[in-house]
């Protein structure tokens, strides 16, 4: 009897999560797959993918999504790492910084996009300040479709502001579980702060870095509200096209085709990180 209870216990503890994930993630993914391969009246087809690939915005959406990924993810990880290491030194008042860093986590992405729009627009805060300081005598058009790099740059800045905090939180949690003994040992052997960071902290942080990269990359594929607010239709992204096809064009099938594409990219990126950032248990410091 007792043995049986012990066998059941882990499963019953896992059950709520399993049910949650099945109902809210696995089932919708299956539904999206079905939709993507179906016509509105239910017969199977590849026409949705053809229509998606032939759409005016498809090539740009693919290009800009990948570009955003390349620009945002590495920059955010480096920034977040610096922020986390800074907090981890536990200097006086570090909790204040922690809370300030966490503010963007509480703001919806569309609200963040609109806030940044009011900063970057022609008569926005940034131009007003630059003008007051005498740096610019005419407003600079950050959000002109004729100046795509500037427009793209504003998105990178806004997205970095919005989502660096989550990477930092994961890295900071990772830092906290590294046993203090390692740092003390490093100190005993006379390591400088830089050496300690490079040769002790970073290798031990690899599992957290991997998690942060995976989560951040998934989020990067889902980005669209900030892009919508700052660049309208000029810089399309995959998730935004999915939204457009579903909401504006009332075509759930093509929206699902985009969703499947995003899913494939996400799975590929996750596999890449798991494969090439492999972490052993010993490195993680859990042995």
């Amino acid at each position, binding site marked *: 009897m007792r043995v049986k209870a012990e066998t059941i216990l882990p499963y019953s503890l896992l059950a709520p999560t399993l049910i949650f994930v099945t109902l809210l993630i696995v089932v919708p993914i299956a539904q999206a797959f079905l939709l993507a391969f179906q016509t509105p009246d239910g017969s199977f087809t590849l026409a949705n993918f053809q229509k998606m690939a032939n759409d005016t915005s498809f090539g740009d959406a693919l290009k800009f999504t990948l570009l955003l990924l390349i620009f945002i993810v590495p920059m955010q990880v480096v920034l977040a790492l610096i922020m986390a290491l800074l907090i981890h030194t536990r200097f006086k008042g570090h909790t204040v910084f922690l809370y300030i860093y966490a503010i963007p986590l509480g703001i919806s992405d569309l609200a963040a996009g609109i806030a940044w729009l009011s900063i970057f627009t022609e008569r926005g805060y940034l131009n007003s300040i630059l003008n007051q300081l005498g740096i610019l005598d005419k407003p600079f058009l950050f959000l002109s479709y*004729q100046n795509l790099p500037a427009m793209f740059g504003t998105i990178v800045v806004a997205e970095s502001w919005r989502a660096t905090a989550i990477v930092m939180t994961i890295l900071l949690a990772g830092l906290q579980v590294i046993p203090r003994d390692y740092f003390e040992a490093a100190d005993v052997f006379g390591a400088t702060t830089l050496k300690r960071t490079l040769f002790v902290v970073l290798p031990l942080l690899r599992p957290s870095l991997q998690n942060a990269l995976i989560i951040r990359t998934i989020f990067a594929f889902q980005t669209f509200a900030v892009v919508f607010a700052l660049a309208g239709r000029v810089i399309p992204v995959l998730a935004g096209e999915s939204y457009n096809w579903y909401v504006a064009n009332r075509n759930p099938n093509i929206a699902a085709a985009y969703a499947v594409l995003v899913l494939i990219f996400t799975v590929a990126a996750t596999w890449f990180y798991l494969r090439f950032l492999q972490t052993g248990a010993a490195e993680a410091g859990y042995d």
Partner: protein
Amino acid sequence: MAKRIVYLMIVVALLTAACAPAPAAAPTAEPTKAPVAAPTQAPAPTAAPAQPLVFLSTQLTPVEEQEKMRNIILKDMTGAKVDFISDAEGVVVDRILAEQKAGKVAVGVVGVLHGTFPNLLAANALEDLTPLVAKLSDRPIVKEFMTLGKLGTDKQYYIPWMQATYVMAVNKKAMQYLPAGANVDALTYAQLAEWGKNITNATKEKKIGFPAGPSGLMHRLTQGYLYPSYTGGLVTTYRSDDAVKMWTDFKAIWEYTNPQSVTYNNMQDPLLSEEVWITIDHTARVVNAFKNKPNDFVAAPAPAGPKGRYYMSVLAGLGVPKGSPNRAGAEALIEYLTRPAAQAITLREVSFYPIVESALPTDLPDYVRLEADGVVKQSKASDAKVALLPIGLGAKGGDFNKIMQDTLTRIVLKGEDIKTVLNDQANQLNALMTELKAPCWSPDPDSGGTPCQAK
């Protein structure tokens, strides 16, 4: 400290789970399920209805306008407690049709644009309102609008509710650059380009603006203003030589258009911040400019092209879904909203114009009068002609709009060859119209029931 981080992570996890956009979770079943959750039992006819009357609309979607509808326009309404809900056209149509299919109707009154009603009628989802017409005979509803409400039949399927249009809003600072011989109340598109050029030469800034942002109404300007004014049609003339001329001229205007136009969803904000001096947009989307700085702006008719000064009249009507749970309440609401007093409040609060043929009320605030001045000049211009919103496209209205948006993106923003683009897009347009079996609507010539096609 470690504990604090754990709490923070939990909060973050919850937040991201709640906020993450999940395109993968876009089930088609959703819109059909939602309304079923609403009360479904038809109330006993004798008892006062305990459930509020659901007034579902595609109009007044901005939150402030919804609040004005609930708290100000409907304030004096008696006879039924009204629950006003506003959503996108597709969602509204889906809900009405789903309720019909399920046989459980919760929506009491539906307030949508003229072009949406044929789809509801095609699904046999509308009550015949002919008996109500006699009760409304005390108010001078414009006859043409009442006729439109019959949807080509001999029965009244909707009662006109309110109308809107687009207006040209001009900052007075722009007036000094008006081309010689041009009159702001009788402008042509060619003169608009020249005007923009004069301003850019003088100020080194591009001061024309268009609502070409992701939720802006630029496609309506293409459909109801540019195309008809140059080609006398829309679908049939989509790739005509006149259309090539139109896009060539529009590109000339775009030369002097603020490139931030691609982010503008309504034009009142860029007008107020003076990023833009001249624009054309929906009356409800420029009204704050007149409201906040009544001394700075004038309203004028939209420009004219070779085929006339076309403008789009946006007519919204009130219908009752078949099997509506509270017919008496629905009729009371329609009767209330078409009263001249309620029409005046609607104009004052949300800038939609009356459908009754009476002089504008005298107690209008200045800013409404300013804008109304432009609207009246537009409809009374000697070369004025009316274009209607697309009709009978239903849930595919978005696809139709996308064709216009893609045409603009490719020709104007990406600089592709006009003829090639028009040919591509006209083929898509023809495929869509064939799929929908949608006949032509004004100003395209009657296609006699066959799908409207670009030549």
